């Protein structure tokens, strides 16, 4: 196991809808899904290499199989991303959520490319 995988950080997340606080543990950078355990509002979190929160936003839906937990969301096989979605995905990888980003994730999900890590 790499040094990076052994790291983890506890973070306090405040739900954008009900404003309740939840403490979660994050151990890797990238995109994560979080569903508020109090009201069920899904959120998207972008985590940087230092395990800091780059972006935290409410979203209408997320491909999360494990509700009320934090789960890493990733693309199964980046080589299968069509050219129409590549600019969007490159932005997300750089830690930027473009306007209408939910449509980008919806498109990736519809193609069966988004997955949630156990």
């Amino acid at each position, binding site marked *: 196991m790499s040094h990076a995988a052994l790291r983890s950080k506890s973070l306090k997340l405040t739900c954008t809808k009900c404003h309740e606080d939840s403490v979660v543990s994050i151990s890797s950078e990238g995109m994560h899904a979080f569903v508020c355990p109090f009201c069920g509002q899904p959120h998207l979190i972008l985590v940087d290499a230092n395990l800091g929160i780059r972006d935290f936003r409410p979203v209408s839906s997320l491909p999360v199989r494990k509700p009320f937990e934090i789960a890493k969301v990733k693309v199964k096989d980046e080589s299968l991303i069509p050219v*129409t979605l590549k600019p969007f995905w490159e932005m997300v990888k750089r830690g930027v959520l473009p306007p209408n980003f939910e449509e980008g994730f919806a498109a990736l999900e519809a*193609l069966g490319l988004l997955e949630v890590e156990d």
Partner: protein
Amino acid sequence: MPITPFLLAKFFSDPKEAMRLLRIASEFENYSVWRMYSALQESQLLRQLQEKPWWEFPDKDLARNLGDIFVYKGYAAWKGDALVFKSSPARPTVSTSEVADLIPVIDKVAQMLPRALLTGEKPSLIEDRAYYSKLLGSAAHKVLTDITIEVTGLPTLSESAVIVDLLPRAGLSTLSLLERTRARIVAVEPLPQNIELIKNLVKLVGQQERVVIVQSSPEAMKLPEKVNAVFASSVMHWVSNPHLVLTRVRENLREDGFLAVYQPCYEGGGLILSLFHYFFGAVRVVPKSSEVQELIRQAGFKITKATGSRGFLALRAEPQ
């Protein structure tokens, strides 16, 4: 890839781009043929292709298309209706990003080819949606789509003009039209899952006010108002009745409107594209360039511009 009038003209206007296009075509052909040959060799199907005529395979069109590819690349010759292999392709290098982008699709086709050849089974469009969208949304496909948009004059249409994007499937043509023209777009697409994808893509680029999506098969297209242009990107082999589709296009076009076509054809590198499209949902192998042009004339069009390279046709036609 032979030098054709299209490439020759490109060499004079933009030699660097012409060289890039040549390299993309050459690398695409060489990598695809090497992968397919290797897959058939590993599954010991090369011998069957030499012993059995193409029409004895469960999917005759697939076997014939495959044989024609090896013959075109000089690795085999037809002896009657069976193949005689003369040499084997060497592992090629891939240096262009467009071909590197297509490698997952090429590898997938090569992996599934032996089974498809033996059983006639092709991948399901739903199960292999990612590959389907990748094939129809590849960087190489975008290059050819963009070239066609330019050479057929679609960017000259005004902001008030309407272009029908016929059968956009994975939405690449819709995004190319949004990027390269100023007109409003009417996307005519029958499959609900494709419509959802296109809606998402259009919203992602923030251009939803320019696009209307009509759920209809191209054969049944009936628009409330006649349009300035119809863009048919790689459509003729994806529809069950191309003549009826072209008739509908003619009915929905204004008298001063035009049809812009990008079509892979059954020759040169188009033979390989044909096999890939056929694998991922096209109803038949691609037509020959002459067949496409004849179909368009029969539907009441006059072809005013036809260019392309071997296996790729970009065409503009006007109602007459």
